[in-house]
């Protein structure tokens, strides 16, 4: 029997550290299936992460892998991609990593349109540190640092990346694992910066504190509360409160950074020869 995903796993480290029912493994599976369908050579794939639960993913993957500092995965990945544009550089990051401490790097990676694929595992919580609220925790939800309910609003990372200039923006949840995998596949194939937000369940911290039931209940909650972008566009914004809008939001064709830089090299060499 062909077991393609096992080809991409450092199976000696399994089972992984994620809690029972944590959706991160579902997202990781979706990413690996996308890589498998594209049949990318393992030596040409580089996975970069920051710090947090999601950022533990690269350790389990048989590619060139880097587990960097908190929030900085995209900046490390930018250096890798610019130095080796032929590599497929995929950033696996969490909502704390990408939306809080690393938010500025996300904005500028998208603005530069560097050819990176970013998958943000959004579980709306800091899991590794036991459940503090993140920039993706909806207002009113509970966390270990929001015992009376979260005061802050969460923000829409897909809108952010689109506004900043990324070439591909999509969102799905763990209840839409096939769709999610297709989005990651499209993201990898996109020249320029591509961003996929993967909404995922943290049953241990977010789920328990917000009385969301079992992992299965949380996935069912995602399914019931998700609405695709086309349908959402027809609704009054007030009716979308608390909904998760899923879909491919944007596909652009702005020039990719390293391709533009290659032109800079040509011009510089001509200038030096004069």
């Amino acid at each position: 029997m062909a077991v393609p995903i096992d080809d991409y796993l450092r199976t000696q480290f399994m089972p992984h550290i994620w809690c029972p029912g944590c959706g991160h493994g579902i997202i990781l599976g979706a990413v690996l299936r996308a890589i498998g369908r594209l049949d990318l050579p393992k030596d040409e794939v580089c996975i970069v992460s920051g710090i947090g639960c999601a950022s533990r993913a690269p350790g389990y993957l048989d590619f060139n892998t880097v587990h960097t500092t908190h929030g900085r995965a995209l900046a490390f990945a930018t250096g890798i991609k610019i130095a080796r544009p032929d590599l497929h550089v995929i950033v696996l990051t969490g909502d704390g990593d990408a939306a809080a401490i690393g938010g500025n790097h996300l904005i500028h990676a998208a603005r530069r349109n560097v050819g990176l694929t970013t998958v943000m595992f959004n579980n709306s919580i800091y899991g590794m540190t036991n459940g503090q609220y993140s920039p993706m925790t909806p207002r009113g939800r509970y966390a270990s640092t929001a015992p009376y309910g979260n005061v802050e609003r969460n923000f829409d990372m897909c809108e952010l990346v689109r506004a900043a200039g990324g070439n591909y923006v999509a969102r799905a949840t763990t209840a839409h694992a096939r769709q999610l995998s297709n989005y990651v596949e499209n993201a990898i194939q996109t020249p320029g910066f591509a961003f996929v937000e993967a909404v995922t369940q943290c049953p241990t911290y977010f789920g328990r504190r917000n009385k969301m039931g079992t992992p299965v209940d949380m996935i069912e909650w995602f399914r019931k509360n998700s609405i695709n972008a086309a349908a959402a566009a027809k609704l009054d914004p007030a009716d979308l409160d608390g909904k998760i809008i899923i879909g491919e939001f944007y596909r652009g064709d702005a020039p990719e950074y390293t391709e533009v830089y290659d032109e800079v090299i040509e011009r510089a060499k001509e200038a030096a020869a004069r």
Partner: protein
Amino acid sequence: MTSAESPEVPVLVRQEWCKGCGICIAMCPKKVLEAAADGKVVLARPEDCIKCETCEIMCPDFAIRVVGGRSKEVARGREDVADARA
């Protein structure tokens, strides 16, 4: 894999990777899977399996493989991407 590979066993479970979260059991459209006493998944009604691979795709622990599934050739557009596009 703890289960023997044979055509009669459509789903293989790697017990040592399974954390007993129950997602595969709940997601299986044909109720092929059940929880054992330790909470880990077992194959209860293999004859009902339609090899849709939902259990494999939804398992967060990479513990399930569907024998003869489409694996790398997982069809695109099973949930039509175009439908969801803005």
